[in-house]
């Protein structure tokens, strides 16, 4: 396996691990707010690592920039969604 493949494998593998960790958090955490935390933090980190692993394999500079833009947008969306949903949970009570 070439060095690029090795790097990709390591990064993507780590990404999948964080996706798994996020799901375990979803399953085990006791209330909506902590589940929200597990979802938006762990899954976003997993996606970031997957993107990192795919960057060396992209076919052009534009494609690589798109990958980074995708990850940045998901970060933004995740952080904002966490705030919005968390606020809704707090406002409406835990039965939302």
């Amino acid at each position: 396996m070439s060095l690029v493949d090795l790097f990709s494998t390591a990064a993507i593998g780590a990404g999948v691990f964080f996706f798994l960790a996020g799901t375990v958090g979803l399953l085990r955490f006791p209330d909506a707010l902590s589940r929200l935390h597990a979802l938006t933090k762990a899954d976003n980190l997993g996606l970031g690592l997957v993107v990192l692993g795919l960057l060396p394999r992209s076919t052009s500079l534009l494609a690589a920039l798109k990958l980074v833009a995708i990850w940045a947008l998901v970060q933004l969306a995740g952080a904002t969604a966490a705030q919005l949903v968390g606020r809704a949970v707090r406002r409406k009570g835990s039965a939302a």
Partner: protein
Amino acid sequence: MSVLKALDIGLAFLVFAVAAWTIFARGAFAATVGYVVYGLLLSLVWIRLFAVDVALTEAAIGSGVTGVLLIGAAARLRGAASAAGEKSLSGAPRLLAASLCILVVLALAAVVLLFPDQGPSLAPQSMRHLPETGLGNPVTAVLIAYRAFDTMLEKVVLVLAVVGVWSLAADRCWGGAPGEPRAERPEPTLAFLAQVLAPLGILIGIHIFWVGADEPGGAFQGGAILAAMWIIVVMARLTELPQTSAAWLRLALVAGPLVFLIAGVAGAIFAGSFFAYPPGLAKPVILFIETFMVLSIAVALPMLVAGPPRREPKVDGSR
């Protein structure tokens, strides 16, 4: 069994499971979330079927436009249902609906599975004539070159849908501004999201429209993304929805089908038949038509999500 096949089977199973959950979900909101998830999973399926343009449309419409529309509707229904007392359908109509749906699914599955291996297809011919249109994306060629008339009629249907939605307004509200989908109170987080997403989204929407000539993309997908950007800016209360009597709004709505029709008629005059494009000028004409289509779609979809006018029109010209 290769990894790809296992992945496809797993994906299909997941889609079935989510669809089944959506059907059996209790409560309108749960069902709408299930439907949005189902739409996003379908994007993956379209990618696996190598229909990337359809996947783009599914992603743009399913999460941006339809998701907002359904969730808003579910919220309004919840308020109405708790006030009126909910009455759900009894057993017999449900059984009838279920059997009809199952029948249609079985018929479709039979047709698809019983196709001869080399099914009847015009794909080779459409690919052969692609260079004459100047386009690189066969889907765009089919939409705007080979079957332009259908696409124009689709845009007319979109305008008719907007008129239909507007006609649900109370008589005194005709011409006023729609009420949804604004937040009840200014949310700083939502405002921040809208302020960051909107410029990026406009850029990405225009990029996807422009790139649709040669790569997957196109006017509808680009227009849907632009529509979603307008929707979120309205949701964040950064701008108000326009009055439905506004001249610019109505002009923007009909601009797409109108320019399309004019191009078709011009084709009859300059190139020999209705919707023929002059050779060598095909791509510029197509992009010109698509620009106005994007405008119409970007205006029509938020109007559909916004719903019928709920406020009386202001007559003195102030907004």
